[in-house]
Structures are given as structure tokens and as C-alpha cells.
């Protein structure tokens, strides 16, 4: 059963750390992943030898930085199976990408007029307005909920919610009822950051496209854990964060089909996204630069490319199998410990397991587990509607990445027992 095991801990310097005199068992990967040495050194070397601002500087350093930045874009493109580099917009992260998209979809008009900027380039039909509907699900991270809530309120659109089954999966039978001819956008997470449930995204996309709605998939919890191919998902937008996939912080991706991005005005403006400017007007650069106002975080993009190469050397399919095996083992071990409730179960899981110890506040348990060297996250996990669905105030979340092993899980079980004995 453990044959798919990877053995990668030594690639990650931080995993050699001790916490309160015990080796670190890091199970907070859904919050952020640790970085392999190759990524840390890549960025450090970049700053030591290559760094210079990009944007068509003519000197050599600037050209080297620019080339590496565009190479990183190509690496990302290939990694997620996008057709064209113009479809890869670098952002500061998932939250940033979703906010950028939400603003572009609804906040670039002057009271009903066409969007402005390079007016002729955009389609005012692409703007979400009065009476339009946006559909989110009951398991979204706040970052894929609040921007849509706000957009709906600003533009007079209506936020609809696809409810969940008791087990935490999407209520798929409801889909044809919830996606109506007024639905303009479906915003859904690929993988729940709490339960680890993998959503049937392809099916959702088919339904949405049948009704003429666009689909944004929040891939923050997916890209580090399984092969992702935006072409076969056929979603219109896909977003994720570098820091959750072994790259440094401060970089994220907004993938959008070129035809969709072409329709949208830039919602963030400034240096680097224009080809000419007067005090009254501007001409905007082509995709993807149009959406990248300001100095981009090109060193973090370089780190993302390095992280992707690291992932590709291991192989996403192998990573998926390793984590599947561990995920099952973790659920088994928790059930064996007993005296606890696991939230959510579905045909397909990835990454996180959420649970609570009977009669014990997750915060208290987390404190004890930390002293056992086990890093888990407790609280609402930025998913309060999902907490309400399970009728809890919060829970413990243990979440996996490629470097975890059965030893980490055994340590988790031991720490849970300790918390139970102290708090029970």
C-alpha cells in the first residue's frame, strides 16, 4: 500500500527544524507550503546576479530579467495546459487574481456606458450588471466569496449559492436549477481547502457553458497536488497562488481564455500596462501585460518556474498517488484514534482532512498538538459558510503536501491522543 511513497523531506531545509524539542511534523500545507532548497537558492542567485526591472529596458540585466520573467510565464502556461502565453496573467496571489477579475467584470463602466480605457477593445456585454446572477458554492474560501458578494452589491447583481449535501459535496442535482439563463459566472473551488473534497469541475463547466455562463475555478488547493489541465477542464478562468505550490510568496496566476481576457478592461492601471498615455487617454498594451500594472514580482515568477520544474521532475501523477495513499492512511488513523468527527467525505479527496475532537475546542487541541511538534491549523479556515453547514464554530485541519509521510501521520495521531487525554 505504501509503494507510491516519495521521500522528499531532505529537499526542504525547514523540515529539519525542531519545534519544542521535537521534529516538526508540518501538516499546515493548505495554508502555505514549504520551499525546496532549489527554489530558495534560485531566488537568492537571481538577486545576486540577474536582478533588474523588466519592461523593455535596453541594458543587459534588464533583458536577462525580462527574458526570465517571460520564460516563467511559458513554464506556467505549459504546466497548466493553457494554449497561449497571453492567457497567463501574473498577480500577487489567488485573492489578488479574483479581486482583479471581479473588478474587471463589473467596475470599469461609467454608469451603464461601455467600459473605458481603450474603449473599442472591450465588450460591454462582458460586464456584469443589474439582475445578472453569480453562482458560488457553499464551500468557497472567503477569497472566492467576498469579491463576488461585493461585485453583486455594487452592480445590482444577485449572488446565488449552490448548496452542499450533508457530506460536504456539491448538491449536483440542483445544478440545472441554480444555473439559469441569468447566470453570468460560476465561481467554484477545484478542491475544498477544508474538507479536501475535489469538485466535479468539468461537469460544472459543461452545465454552465450550456447556459452561457462563464466559470472561474479557484485552483489554490489543486495545482500542487494533482495534474491540472485547463484545456480539458475548459474553464474560462483558473487562479492559484505560488506560495501554496512551493514557490515564494507574492506571486499568483490568473489564467483566462484569450477571448475572455480580450473582452475585459484592466481593473488595475499604472506603469507597464500602456503603450501611450496622455492626461486624458491611454492606449493599452496587449495581453497579458494589460493586466499587469506596476513592477511585476518577476523574481517570484522565477521562483514559481523553479517550483514547477521541481514538481515536473517528480511528476504530478506520482504526487497525486502519494498524497492519495497518505490521505487514506490519515483518515484511517484518525478513525482508529476515535472520539472525533471527520467533516466531509466524497469520491475524491486531496490535501486536507478536517475534524474535531469530541467536546474539545479546536484551538485548545491545536495548542497541545503544537507542543507535540505537529503543526495543524485550527479555526474557520476562511470558510465560515462551510463551518455553518457543518454546524461548527471551527475545526482542526491537517493538510498534506508531497513531502509528508506516514511518520507525520503517526505523529498526528499521537498528538491527537495527547490532546484528548489532557482536555477530555
Amino acid at each position: 500500500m505504501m509503494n507510491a511513497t516519495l521521500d522528499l523531506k531532505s529537499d526542504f531545509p525547514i523540515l529539519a527544524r525542531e519545534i519544542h524539542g521535537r521534529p516538526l511534523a508540518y501538516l499546515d500545507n493548505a495554508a502555505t507550503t514549504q520551499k525546496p532548497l532549489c527554489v530558495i537558492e534560485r531566488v537568492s542567485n537571481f538577486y545576486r546576479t540577474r536582478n533588474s526591472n523588466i519592461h523593455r529596458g535596453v541594458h543587459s540585466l534588464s533583458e536577462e530579467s525580462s527574458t526570465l520573467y517571460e520564460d516563467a510565464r511559458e513554464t506556467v502556461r505549459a504546466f497548466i495546459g493553457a494554449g497561449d502565453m497571453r492567457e497567463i496573467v501574473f498577480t500577487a496571489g489567488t485573492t489578488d487574481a479574483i479581486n482583479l477579475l471581479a473588478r474587471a467584470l463589473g467596475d470599469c463602466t461609467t454608469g451603464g456606458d461601455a467600459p473605458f480605457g481603450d474603449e473599442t477593445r472591450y465588450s460591454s456585454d462582458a460586464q456584469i450588471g443589474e439582475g445578472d446572477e453569480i453562482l458560488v458554492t457553499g464551500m468557497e474560501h472567503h477569497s472566492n466569496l467576498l469579491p463576488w458578494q461585493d461585485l453583486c452589491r455594487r452592480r445590482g447583481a444577485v449572488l446565488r449559492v449552490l448548496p452542499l449535501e450533508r457530506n460536504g459535496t456539491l448538491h449536483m442535482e440542483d445544478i440545472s436549477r441554480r444555473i439559469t439563463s441569468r447566470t453570468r459566472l460560476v465561481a467554484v473551488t477545484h478542491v475544498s481547502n477544508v474538507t479536501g473534497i475535489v469538485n466535479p469541475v468539468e461537469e460544472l463547466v459543461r452545465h454552465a457553458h450550456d447556459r452561457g455562463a462563464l466559470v472561474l475555478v479557484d485552483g489554490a488547493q489543486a495545482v500542487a497536488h494533482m495534474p491540472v489541465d485547463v484545456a480539458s477542464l475548459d474553464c474560462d478562468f483558473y487562479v492559484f497562488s505560488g506560495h501554496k505550490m512551493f514557490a515564494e510568496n507574492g506571486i499568483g496566476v490568473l489564467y483566462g481564455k484569450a477571448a475572455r481576457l480580450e473582452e475585459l478592461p484592466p481593473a488595475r492601471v499604472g506603469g507597464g500596462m500602456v503603450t501611450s498615455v496622455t492626461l486624458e487617454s491611454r492606449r493599452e498594451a496587449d495581453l497579458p501585460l494589460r493586466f499587469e500594472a506596476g513592477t511585476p514580482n518577476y523574481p517570484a515568477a522565477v521562483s514559481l518556474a523553479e517550483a514547477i520544474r521541481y514538481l515536473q521532475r517528480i511528476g504530478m501523477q506520482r504526487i497525486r498517488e502519494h498524497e492519495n495513499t497518505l490521505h487514506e492512511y490519515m483518515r484511517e488513523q484518525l478513525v482508529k484514534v476515535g472520539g472525533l468527527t471527520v467533516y466531509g467525505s466524497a469520491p475524491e479527496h486531496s490535501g486536507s482532512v478536517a475534524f474535531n475532537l469530541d467536546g474539545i475546542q479546536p484551538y485548545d487541541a491545536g495548542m497541545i498538538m503544537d507542543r507535540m511538534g505537529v503543526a495543524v491549523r485550527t479555526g474557520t479556515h476562511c470558510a465560515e459558510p462551510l463551518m455553518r453547514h457543518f454546524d461548527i464554530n471551527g475545526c482542526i485541519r491537517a493538510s498534506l503536501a508531497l513531502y509528508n509521510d506516514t511518520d507525520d501521520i503517526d505523529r498526528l495521531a499521537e498528538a491527537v491522543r495527547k490532546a484528548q487525554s489532557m482536555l477530555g
Partner: protein
Amino acid sequence: MTIAEIQDQIIEEMSAHEDWFDRYEALITLGREFGAPDDSLRRDEYRISGCQSAVWLTAEMRDGRLRLRADSDSQITRGMLALLLRVFDDQPPGKVADAELYFLDAIGLRSNLSPSRANGLGTIVRAIRETARRHTG
């Protein structure tokens, strides 16, 4: 007893517990003995924001002294509240506002005071002191 005397007493009691687990075991016990959850207290208006666990706090003046009531859904936090109330409850508000708080440091809870701590002990102490300040002068 004065605030300082109570702190010294607590330090002496807790010094019996050598390692972290013993100390927290004691804290949890204090939390358990802290009294039954009080629904008249567990209301949104009394809730201190900025702690991961729910913490409720109220204060009133009686005979020139600050009377505090507090609760939490976390056992560990209840244990900390038990200690804090032992120190601060039924003291003149001026003393509460200004007292040097050294016992947390001495019993190894100091790190809990930093503003980024999820338990918000620092937040609770700040809330108590502000309440006290409102009741002085």
C-alpha cells in the same frame, strides 16, 4: 491582597509545574473549575474580537472596585481568564489600569501576550485595562 501579592502567589503555585504540559494541565484544570458557562455573558456585545477562541468580558463598578466577569469557549483560555480575574477582579480600577503584569512572564505565558498570538491573551489584557481606564477619573 494587592495585585502584586496575588501575582506572587500564582507564581509560587505554578512553579510546582516544571514542564509545559504540567503547566497547561494545571491551566486546563483551572479552566474547568472556572465555573459553568454563563449564557448571560456569552453575548455578541461582550465578545472581544481578535482571539481565535471566543472570549466574553464585562465589567462594572461596585464599591469603588472593578468587578469583572469573563468566559471563553476554550478551556485553556478559561484557565488564563481564571488567573487574570484572580489578579484583577475586585481591585480599584486605577490599579488595574496601571499594574505591572509580571506573573505571565514568570509562569511562561509571556509569549501568549504578543499581538499576533491566536489566543489573544494580549488582547484580553488590553481590554481589561481599557475597561479599567474608563472607570477611573
